[in-house]
């Protein structure tokens, strides 16, 4: 009897938390499906649309170049992920396994980048990409590079992979040396394959972060055709300022890719958030 009461209380709390967490999105979806004849400000609010329609989605899709936004977001996120995987795993190797002069210095230099947020240095970073001509007013390719390079490596990634490398038994390395492997072979043929789960976690996390990045693209992008999804969505919000059916439909469209990605790769999200904390 005590257990039953306890469970009822627990499930009530859980359902409440679930409604708070996804309620705003469900309400957005509901609005997006309401036809133009239905009053979206109706009191009491109607959750299930009277005549559900795709017309808002179709109209928004026609007026806003979503495919271009999605391609831009994907391109930028993809290269950020690839570069992070390569650069972090390269840097993590000596930090995990080698002794050398200045190791401590490197270690703390990387650590410092965690403590100082991008917002503090964003002005000179902007000047830097201007100087290097890595902006979309120069060329679209340059614009992509300017979106990618400042985020091509991340201290969390380096420490995360260093931790994964530390867990690999020294004997494997020794055996490889006896077999005549050079140091690059050891990195490529032992450390990389054996830390695939950590690399996958880092990839998923980096991708999700890059995909939703707003501040940097909103600073550097000047051409609408170069907009990433979050910048495009914020732009859409301004264009349709009064039309909440369209804004909602646009937001719902933009949510779909990342939601599918998350639901497919959930375990990596969870393990990433866990490891980021536990292993520090």
């Amino acid at each position, binding site marked *: 009897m005590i257990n039953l009461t306890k469970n009822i209380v*627990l499930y009530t709390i859980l359902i409440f938390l679930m409604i708070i967490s996804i309620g705003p999105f469900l309400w957005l979806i509901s609005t997006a499906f309401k036809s133009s004849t239905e009053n979206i400000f109706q009191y009491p609010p109607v959750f299930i649309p009277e005549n559900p329609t795709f017309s808002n989605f179709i109209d928004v899709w026609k007026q806003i170049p979503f495919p271009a936004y999605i391609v831009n977001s994907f391109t930028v996120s993809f290269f950020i992920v690839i570069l992070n995987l390569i650069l972090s795993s390269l840097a993590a190797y000596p930090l995990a396994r*080698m002794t050398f002069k200045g190791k401590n210095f490197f270690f703390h230099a990387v650590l410092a*980048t965690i*403590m100082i947020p991008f917002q*503090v240095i964003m002005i000179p*970073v902007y000047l830097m990409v201007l100087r290097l001509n890595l902006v979309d007013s120069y060329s679209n390719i340059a614009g992509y590079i300017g979106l990618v390079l400042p985020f091509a490596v991340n201290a969390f990634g380096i420490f995360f992979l260093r931790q994964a490398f530390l867990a690999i038994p020294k004997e494997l390395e020794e055996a490889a040396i006896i077999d005549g492997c050079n140091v690059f072979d050891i990195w490529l043929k032992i450390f990389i394959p054996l830390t695939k789960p950590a690399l996958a976690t880092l990839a998923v996390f980096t991708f999700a972060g890059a995909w939703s990045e707003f501040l940097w693209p909103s600073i550097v992008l000047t051409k609408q055709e170069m907009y990433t999804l979050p910048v495009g969505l914020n732009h859409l919000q301004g264009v349709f300022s009064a039309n909440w059916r369209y804004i909602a439909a646009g937001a719902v469209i933009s*949510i779909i890719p*990342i939601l599918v990605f*998350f639901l497919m790769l959930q375990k990596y999200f969870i393990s990433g958030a866990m490891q980021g904390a536990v292993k520090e």
Partner: protein
Amino acid sequence: MKNYYKSFTPYLFLIPAGVILIVFFFVPFFETLTLSFKSYGSDIYSPEWTGFNNYIKLINAPIFWKTLINTFVYLVGVVPALVILPLIIAIVVNRKLVGINIFRTAIYIPVVVSIVVAGIAWKWVYADNGILNYFLTFIGLNKMGWLTDPDFAIFSIMFVTVWKGLGYYMVVYLAYLTTVPKDLWEAAEIDGANTLQKHLAVTVPYMMPAITFVTVMSSISAMKVFVEIYVMTQGGPLNSSKTIVYYIYQRAFENLDLGYASSAGVVLLVIIMIISILNIKFLEKGKYPTM
């Protein structure tokens, strides 16, 4: 094992990441410092040294103090909520209930969704004729200007920031909960402790590293809050929800006052440093970070 690599090998591995960090982190970091003593007068390409001018202008700008106070309000409101609520949620979801993974997933969804989408969703919830005001009128209260009342807008946005962070910190705590020895909980129960006493006496001490981590991380992210404000209120009404990063962004990229904005950036940096050090000192007495 003898060194199987040459003395310069470690540096070869560090160079690619090092170049990126130097070009896009360390050089900009030092340039923030120098820029804060410069002014872009007539020529956009060659700023002039103006000494402490930017800082003097900053101190005399009421709007700067306003954004600083708003940032502290944000910090004081958001950090305790993000330290305590996810811990409670983690304890609740850390049991084998039917369907518990569905609840965990739902709570985590705001974390993965872009803050722009989240801002739009909440703007719609907060709308004057929106669903939240309906509930207020339903229980007999007056409607509120959630995002249009200068006394209230910042708190409405703070709620969104907390809401978006709950899932992430919940997972952090869940990871640490596995380190608490189960028999200690059982011992506390046998001693007749109620749920609250049990967790205060057993869980919290074991969770201190996680609590420190969450405090430091949520403090830094509260100090740099920007996008949710940009999407929901643009800093208004009457600058009531404008924080320091918003101010920097505006002065730098809307007014092109790069030197002045950099001096505000330096102030932000100093504050973040002080808060991080205080957090670490008070919570873990120098044990952090231990990477």
